[in-house]
């Protein structure tokens, strides 16, 4: 464990020195994603200027939803996204060999080798959006509720990671990942604009249990606004456990099919 932590610290130092070479784009991800979430807030404000609620959700809940999605995105961008996103390229080029032959867990290294401190300002920005949503909601929540909210933020960040790993492990079998990344981008774009409570029927099944992006920000918001049922909280936790196991299994299964050759 300590050995792994020391290894991660070394990776972080190396990444930081690489990033300092391109100082102008250091905070690039923060600017791009910060701007995207501000645009989404403007979009919801425009809708809420005409109506009081969307599917029973108030402006405060929708704002907390956007802040929560932004927070999950910020955690992903800061810690693992830029590492995981490189997996298909490394499979395609055969560069994955360098990771498999080193005396460290290859997925651990791939995940954390591109920690992006330039995305970190998105975390306080997202917390600011959540705080603004909480003030709009004018609600009273116990400290226990807030703790459960942050526990679920952690779980959903793990689920977000699991989905990224699963989708980027598919290139072990199909080589090209372009359409998979397009699919992921499209589903995320949809689920960050539509609170999960609005999905009905087959869409609910699809975005809660098959591509569970609809679950990620919705459940924490329901927890913090005291509108989540015990069953739904338990089911969400089970989905996280299931997808974590699936991601690990799928990664190992993919490795067995790795051709170890540039193509």
């Amino acid at each position, binding site marked *: 464990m300590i050995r792994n932590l020391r290894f991660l610290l070394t990776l972080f130092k190396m990444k930081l020195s690489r990033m300092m070479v*391109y100082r*102008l*784009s250091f905070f*690039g991800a923060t*600017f*791009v994603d910060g*701007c*995207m979430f501000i*645009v989404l807030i*403007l*979009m919801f404000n*425009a*809708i809420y*200027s*005409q*109506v009081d*609620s*969307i*599917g029973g959700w108030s402006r405060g809940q929708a704002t907390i939803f956007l802040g929560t999605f932004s927070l999950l995105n910020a955690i992903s961008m800061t810690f693992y996204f830029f590492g995981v996103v490189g997996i298909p390229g490394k499979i395609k080029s055969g560069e994955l060999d360098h990771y498999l032959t080193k005396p460290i867990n290859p997925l651990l290294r791939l995940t954390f080798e591109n920690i992006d401190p330039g995305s970190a300002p998105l975390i306080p920005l997202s917390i600011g959006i959540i705080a603004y949503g909480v003030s709009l909601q004018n609600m009273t929540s116990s400290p226990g509720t807030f703790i459960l909210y942050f526990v679920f933020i952690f779980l959903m960040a793990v689920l977000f990671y699991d989905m990224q790993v699963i989708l980027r492990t598919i290139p072990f079998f199909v080589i090209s990942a372009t*359409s998979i990344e*397009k699919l992921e981008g*499209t589903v995320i*774009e*949809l689920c960050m*604009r*539509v609170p999960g409570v*609005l*999905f009905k029927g087959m*869409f609910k099944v699809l975005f809660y249990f098959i591509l569970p992006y609809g679950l990620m920000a919705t459940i924490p918001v329901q927890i913090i606004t005291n509108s989540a049922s015990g069953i739904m909280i338990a089911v969400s936790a089970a989905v996280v456990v299931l997808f974590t196991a699936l991601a690990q299994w799928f990664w190992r299964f993919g490795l067995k099919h790795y051709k170890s050759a540039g193509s």
Partner: protein
Amino acid sequence: MKKYLEIAKTLFKAQIAYRFDVAMTMVFTISKILFAYILWDAVFGQNETVAGFTFPMMFSYYIISSFLYQIEMSDRVSWEVSARIRDGSFSKYMVIPVNPQRYFIAQTLGAMMFYPLFIFASTAAWVVLFRVKLVIACDTAVIAAALIMTVLGLLFMIQLNYLLGILAFRFQDISVFLMIKGNIVAFITGALVPLVLLPRGIVSVMRFFPFYYVTYLPSMLLIGRNKEEALTGIAVLAAWLLLFTILNKYAYSKFRVMYDGVGI
């Protein structure tokens, strides 16, 4: 003119090689339509009308604006121009006997011409699937005005993206700026929500800028609203187009001397 027509034809034919991309573009038209359907179905579940829209009218707006947004592929101009400046391959456009701006306009139009039929087919399929009654204007003059505005809007967006692309002569890496631009343009062209939902003062200011006329106004015209703005819209957009033609010419002649012709 003939050589630019050839460039457009070549790019049109080149799209045939990317059949999978075309198929994915068709499938992913559902994203914006599904977003509109789920979100506005929930909104109209509790309200009969919103900002003068009924649900079929709102859904029609999203169908049309999504179609216009999808066929507007000028984004590739800024990415390609800036990438070629960075890697040094822009030199080719300086030595061949073409005007780079016209070259990229022809190239983008050629690629754009390939997609509308496919995007239209997939959009029509989603409309049938969602069983929503489309609201479409019947006035031919209004439809003609919307079509002219759409073409001017496409040309304007190509000009804008070309200008952003050649900024790479000066700033080298403009990718962050281009990504931010993508988010902002989606909002101010009305691709995310109809601009009529914004405060009246902001909409009044937006009428002086071209983005209002790229997606939003043609979509509104095609659902039978804002007819009185049609002629003004064409005039404003044409003025911006002219301004950007001059601006691009000036920017290119000013910045091209900063190009060293090697990869950065």
